[in-house]
């Protein structure tokens, strides 16, 4: 079980920088996820850790020992990649057993122990019935689980898993995610896990690093990155329905601070929040502007005015979400979505009252375009 540390790791391909000054520490036995959109540099980091790619600068440590120069097989890592890379002429059983038989392994297993280990992992991932098949006879989702089983059949210092369940259909994803979490707790081995799917990362991990264009935007527990995202990008990337974001002007009048976004939206900010909003604000002409965010579950919608801070908007449309009906509004250049109670229906264009739960208001600097397009 290794502790893995990256210090100022940069990777360039020609003039293009894939990973820029990335530092993080993954503790012993920790399940650590790296999430971000396509092209963020997630897989590059895994390849660097595996020893398949060399860093341009920076240092990687396994248990405080620099491993930059160590070839892949001396790092004792097990990998599963998004492309399955199964041996086509081997059965599923032999594919999974392969890492146990590799010549460089010092510990050699008896055939009984090998079978027990392979069957155990196959059972966990629900592929017991496939053990005698060849890879060509498998669906994409089945191949992916075989590939994952092969990676997890032995106990290395570190597991490196790259989108290992990305190709499973939604239902299988949920059950495999649960199986993987159970397995990881049983194994107690360090796991570094790459995904673009925030649900996998939140569900599985002890901590999550959010990567954007080769740079880490935030590292935190699943609860931290969800409830207190450090940037507008992190907020938007995590959660569905996506967090509502809008830019508002900060107006101070009679010792009170207001947030104004367009003609319809004016709310008075409580004192602590006003300070936090001002801290993130930027200058636009003679105005102070801040980006404000709130999740759909923290907005109350009603036909009646709720408080002095309520404001009115016409209903744009009503659809549903896993949390119940979801009401969409237009606010400035973006959409605003709020959960409403089951069984309540508003007409399109009906003007209703909205009220924000200020305890859950988030303020950000502006690092991305948020207009609907």
């Amino acid at each position, binding site marked *: 079980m290794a502790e893995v540390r990256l210090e100022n790791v940069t990777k360039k391909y020609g003039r293009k920088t894939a990973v820029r000054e990335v530092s993080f520490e993954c503790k012993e036995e920790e399940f650590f996820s790296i999430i971000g959109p396509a092209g963020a540099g997630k897989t590059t980091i895994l390849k660097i850790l595996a020893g398949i790619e060399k860093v341009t600068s920076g240092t990687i440590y396994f248990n405080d020992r620099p491993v930059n120069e160590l070839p892949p097989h001396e790092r004792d890592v097990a990998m599963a990649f998004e492309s399955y890379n199964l041996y086509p002429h081997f059965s599923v059983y032999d594919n999974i057993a392969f890492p146990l038989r590799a010549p460089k392994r010092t510990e050699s297993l008896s055939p009984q122990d090998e079978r027990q280990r392979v069957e155990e992992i196959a059972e966990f991932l629900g592929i017991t019935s496939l053990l005698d098949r060849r890879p060509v006879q498998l669906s994409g989702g089945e191949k992916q689980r075989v590939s994952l089983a092969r990676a997890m059949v032995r106990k290395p210092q570190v597991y490196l898993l790259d989108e290992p369940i990305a190709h499973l259909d939604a239902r299988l994803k949920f059950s495999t995610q649960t199986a993987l979490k159970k397995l990881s707790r049983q194994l107690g081995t360090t796991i570094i896990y790459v995904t673009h799917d925030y*649900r996998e990362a939140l569900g599985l991990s002890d901590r999550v690093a959010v990567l954007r264009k080769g740079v880490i935007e935030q590292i935190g527990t699943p609860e931290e990155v969800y409830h207190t995202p450090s940037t507008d990008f992190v907020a938007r990337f995590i959660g569905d329905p996506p967090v509502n974001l809008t830019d508002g002007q900060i107006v101070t009048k009679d010792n009170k601070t207001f947030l104004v976004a367009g003609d319809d939206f004016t709310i008075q900010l409580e004192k602590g929040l006003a300070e936090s909003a001002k801290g993130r604000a930027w200058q636009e002409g003679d105005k102070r502007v801040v980006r404000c965010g709130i999740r759909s579950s923290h907005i109350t919608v009603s036909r009646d005015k709720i408080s002095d801070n309520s404001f009115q908007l016409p209903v744009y449309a009503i659809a549903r979400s896993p949390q119940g009906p979801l009401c969409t509004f237009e606010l400035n250049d973006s959409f605003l979505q709020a959960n409403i109670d089951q069984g309540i229906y508003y007409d399109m264009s009906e003007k209703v009252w909205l009220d924000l739960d200020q305890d859950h208001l988030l303020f950000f600097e502006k690092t991305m375009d948020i207009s609907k397009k």
Partner: protein
Amino acid sequence: MSKVTIDRVSKTYEGNVEAVREVSFSCEDGQFLAILGPSGSGKSSMLRMIAGLEEITGGEILFDGKVVNRLTPSQRNIALAFESYALYPLMTIYENIAFPLRARGLKRSEVEEKVAFIAEELDLVDILKKKPSSLSGGHQQRVSLARALVREPNVTLLDEPISHMDQRVRAEMRARIRRLHDGLHLTTIYVTHDQAEAVSLCDRLAVLNFGELQQIGTVHEIWNQPANRFVATFVGEPQMNFLDGKIESPREVSMAAGERKIVLPYAGSVDRKYVGSEITIGLRPQQIILSMKKENEGAIASTVELIEFQGENAILTVKLSHIESIEVKVVIPGEKVGQIGESVWLKFSPDIIHLFDKQSSILHPET
């Protein structure tokens, strides 16, 4: 806008491959209906037959009571938006959207008016002079949708129109599509394999599997009264818990391991002849009530085994203390996630229990 009736429709391909078998359902004027099923369920054949892109082997398709089997796609006046956009690359966005109107010989002023309206609704006003190649995928898809809807079709058919967009754009597109449907009073049939997408957008679902209709009903009906185990499994994420059980009496079921037994009251009434039968009990993770204290009569002592935080909610894997071999998944709000190893109480209300016989059909007709 039309009412669409599918009357005992079948589709057999060369070599006797039956893609669709005697499927009947209807979509009322102004309704938003999903045809939902896994790959190979026949949903795409169904869509192509409604559109007129494929011949119907047996049965009839009717628009407002008139058989359309022999009508061409354009005679049926169908709007089709496919996942692949197929825009005309050499035309501007304006010309792309105006194309079906011009093809019909509409007056210039009418064309302009209609294009302006739909462009406004779909936020395309700023890009009307551009060519498709310069647009993002999301934009292209909206142009494709605008082109389909601009000629006020009898029926709008959408084939997985937003499944490959990222989640933020998807949430916005759902709102846009729903607004267009409601605002233009469209009759919309939406074909998808994604149950979450179907549930978010549509009023009614027609669930297909292996070419046969499994159930048609409102989202609420499909969720609460699934017709069989396939529907119960296919709709809802994470999926329904399935536990081995036995009928104790017409109003009671039990779960057992060795000497230990838990008896649950059941809201329906099972025929006496089934008493003693082995059955499968289905429980939706979203409907099980979890509490930290024993607040409910009949609550079952349990222990939290695993927590998967998902943001808005969390999926808990919970083991029953009395029968440790039984594990169920429970979905709870994301704010009050507890700890692994914590003692909790589970309540399986009589009205959330679904019973399936060994053939996977639902056991009771109604409560």
